[in-house]
């Protein structure tokens, strides 16, 4: 029988890991609203299944990471999911107090680079995207990624290499440089 975690336990885990879950989900989905939905779903699942969780298998952090990645990928597979738009990047720019129309050249250039990287990442399919996000955003080792995605180490590496070739092609072949 599945044991549920108590409200206080969930709240403690939420305080500790909700930012992480949100960031991972946002990196995969490129959409704050959907990332917030994912965070909610993740902690509902933590509540439902956490009582049975085996802490020996990497602790709550790794487990919540795994649920977040799976949930985000699941959301991304839906038809209405979309990639980050340039307008959204500009909107994010204005969030930090710089009006998009007044951005200095170098800031605009940085924004454009960021946008193009995000677009290139968005073009990856879920299995490659999740490896890239965990590797270059969460800075996890291949071994940790294999544990989270529950796939063999060799598969992690081959997905990583394939994704990097695709990204390299996308970002380098058009002469885009830092």
């Amino acid at each position: 029988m599945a044991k549920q975690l108590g409200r206080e336990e969930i709240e403690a885990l939420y305080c500790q890991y909700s930012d992480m879950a949100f960031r991972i989900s946002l990196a995969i989905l490129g959409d704050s609203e959907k990332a917030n939905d994912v965070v909610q779903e993740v902690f509902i699942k933590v509540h439902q299944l956490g009582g049975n969780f085996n802490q020996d298998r990497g602790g709550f952090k790794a487990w919540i990471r795994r649920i977040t990645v799976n949930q985000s990928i699941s959301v991304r597979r839906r038809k209405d999911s979309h990639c980050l738009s340039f307008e959204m990047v500009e909107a994010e720019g204005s969030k930090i107090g710089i009006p998009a129309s007044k951005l200095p050249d170098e800031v605009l250039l940085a924004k454009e680079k960021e946008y193009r990287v995000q677009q290139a990442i968005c073009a990856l399919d879920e299995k490659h995207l999740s490896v890239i996000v965990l590797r270059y955003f969460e800075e996890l080792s291949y071994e940790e990624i294999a544990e989270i995605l529950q796939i063999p180490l060799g598969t992690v590496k081959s997905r990583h290499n394939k994704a990097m070739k695709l990204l390299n092609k996308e970002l380098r072949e058009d002469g885009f440089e830092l």
Partner: protein
Amino acid sequence: MNCKDVERELFDYLDDTMSPCEQEAVKSHLSICTICRQKVEDFALTQQELRQGLTGFVARASPSPHNWAIIEARLAVQKPNDRSLLEQSMARIRRNVTQVRYRPLYQKVIAGLTVVAIVVTVCLTAYLPQGHSNKALATELAREDPGLRVMMQEEGFSDLASLETAVVEVGREDMRYVHFIDPETHMPLAVVAVNTKDRSVLSISINETTENLVLIPSLEGSEPLDRQYLLDLARDNPEVGDILDAGAVVTGWCHYTSSRGEEVIAELRLDEAEWLLNLSFPEGSVKGLYKNLGKRTVIVND
């Protein structure tokens, strides 16, 4: 060390996970090969941009302050957990069947068989009853089924005939699974269900969904399907309704836990010949729905 070696070790070099000796060998090659040097510089720049691009965007956003309140409200309406996992899941299914996802249980079943296939490949060479060799069958499939070819090409494998293959019996005389296996990694790349009578392709599952799961559910322990339960699904999911309306017959269902820890609630098989439909319901949603019509494999709602 040559260019091919450098390409293979590229990311170990960039990640600085090589031994000093190996690293020196790469450096030595880079000092004389401008192509490889350029490649290494390109990938290093791509890695740097990835880190900056992801971190830059995500660091400026923060989760909604309302998330916790929403979670609390949802927790408040949930009843204490005094039912079995199956009962809870069934309740969730009835309550929440709102979307179709694209990992059919059928593929998971095939995935389990994939593991068996690898073992079988190592232990013995299997043949179809008709006497066709695996290579001949692989070539034939690659030539005759454009769907398989396209799907494999999307996965980066252009030459199906070059892959190792294994043919696995699945307890039915009229069907076999053909497994295409990467000779380097020994991982299954695709599994194709073939009608052994007319050699038509019944279904194809590719790479991702075949590599992790080691479950082989036994249909012997299946329970009869609750018709009302299926009608509830049909009400919430038009695709299921359409198939039922077409006169399909439910042959069974089963309940087990996958190696990923997902609870798979049910498998329906709507047979024979024309129809084969599989559903699974982890977390209360329809996870996969496959419909096979003759030679054409249709992934519903994909």
